[in-house]
């Protein structure tokens, strides 16, 4: 769609949307959010971008094929699940690693975050594969 207003607005919006998606991803385990919701929000960012600029710049920005993102995401999620059995606990057991205390509170890294990142990539890759293909149809 060739309108100046949309192009200018989308440059501001896309960045904001992607940052919001990452915010949703990171708060996901303890509060509403998570990889799936974050990927849908990030997907709308990319959709806005290709509506304004066409699909070619979006594919360039992604650098890799979206289907690869999806496959990588699924593998990441599986890896997060397999860390449990590797440490002698059931599949998908949440493992937590304390990364020290800060003024804002304790920072903990856990396999649920890794799993959520996997879900994020899988969903984002899948919807972008579909939506880009539909847009170029």
């Amino acid at each position: 769609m060739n309108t100046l207003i949309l192009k200018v607005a989308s440059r501001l919006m896309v960045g904001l949307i992607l940052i919001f998606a990452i915010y949703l991803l990171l708060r996901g385990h303890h509060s509403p959010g998570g990889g799936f919701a974050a990927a849908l929000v990030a997907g709308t960012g990319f959709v806005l971008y290709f509506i304004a600029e066409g699909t070619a710049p979006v594919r360039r920005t992604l650098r890799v094929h979206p289907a690869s993102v999806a496959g990588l995401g699924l593998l990441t999620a599986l890896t997060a699940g397999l860390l449990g059995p590797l440490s002698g606990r059931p599949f998908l057991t949440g493992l937590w690693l304390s990364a020290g205390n800060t003024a804002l509170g304790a920072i903990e890294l856990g396999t649920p975050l890794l799993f959520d990142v996997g879900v994020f990539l899988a969903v984002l890759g899948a919807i972008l594969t579909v939506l880009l293909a539909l847009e170029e149809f």
Partner: protein
Amino acid sequence: MILLYLPILLPLATASLMVMPALPHRLRYPTALTGSLAQLAVTLLLLQGVLDAGILSAQTGNWPAPFGITLVADLLSAAMVVITALMGLAVILYAQPAVARAGGGPLAFAHVLLAAICGAFLTGDLFNLYVWFEVMLMASFALMTGGRGWRAVKGLTAYVVLNLLATLCFLMAIGLLYGLTGTLNLAHLHLQLALVDGDATVTAVAMLLIFAFGIKAALFPLYHWLPAAYPQLPIYTAALFAGLLTKVGVYSLLRVTTLLFAAHQAAILPLLLVSAALSMLLGVLGAAAQGDVRRILSYHIISQVGYMALGIALFTPLALAATIVYLLHHIVVKTNLFLIAGLMRHLGGAYQLERLGGLYAKSGLLATGFLVAALSLAGIPPLSGFWAKLLVIRSTLDAGHLSLALLALAVGLLTLYSMTKIWQAAFWHPAASPPAGTAPGAATLWMGAPVALLALITIFFGLGIEPIFQFATHAAEQLVHPQIYVKTVLGG
């Protein structure tokens, strides 16, 4: 127990590797094949584990049952995942000439389908079963996009609509069950539903579930999607679907009737009995009227599923063992018959009987393979189908249903008629016109090897029925007396 997860995780990992365009083209088919071999290996280990140690269970994420998702492998589940992996391997070998050059694209979704089917067989949680049904549906949609033309769209639409309806009813049943008992863990539901006495809601839930699984299993009167959809698929996809998809429905029926509604059978079993008998009869009559190999085979799935449902409906230990033997026998034979149909097309140039001919002269081995599978389907001794049918008929006689036993015999005879029809037209008669098929070559070897493998399994299944029957009897005992299952899942 990571072993319970591997039959699901390995094909998922294989599929995620295969969807990546970054994976080099020449590595794609080997990846699919390796994934399939690895899946077969872990399912065999799982079966060995269950044989050694009894029912195995695993609590996902270390959440104790009934709060988390439990995976359970009893003898039935373990046998089903082994046979699933075996069929996956056979189909992937068979599809080599069709897909290897194109990078094995559809095989990624075949692996997702295999993961979902194994998930459905291994899960101990009703909602998780629903999720695997959905994954199965998504993967099958992706595999179906091979179909072309208006007839294909019509046939596949029937599949899509009816299967979406089935999952919707399944979901409604799950909602009602959760409202009624507050749990969705199958073992916990077994205990909770026994406390609900004669509640009309339980009957409603049971009907919704039987409707949903009846569509999946293609039971009367819900089978119309099957003969409409299967002939429209690429033949290797059709073989995978024909062997496994309806059997997931039968397996789910087996699970819920034994585990969930053991105390509420009066409403369910008579309905299932009528539906099973009519499926047997109408399926076989439908097949007799067809002239396309794939359509004949599709209708026979319906009549064969009828035998399995009949075993469930009789609900004696022997009848359930008969259903299990039937399941295992039928998956192998039906997959093989579809694979053979593909080879008939490959060598003879068509699926229509009037255009086929002279295949016996062209390939004696293919004719032998067809005879083994077809005679087994019809129930000729000493092949696997004979024993499966014998056990079902024996249990109908034990239950005092002489008319059903006669019906089962008559359906067997009509099955033989259909198989003879294919044999006569495609193998025996000389081809009417100059045959359009290709000469045997390297492709035939890829396609012939799994056919030979499955035919050998059918023969050994029939000759070694004694240990298999004992296995099925033990598996049926585990179903009829779910106390060990419940104890393994819930602990204590």
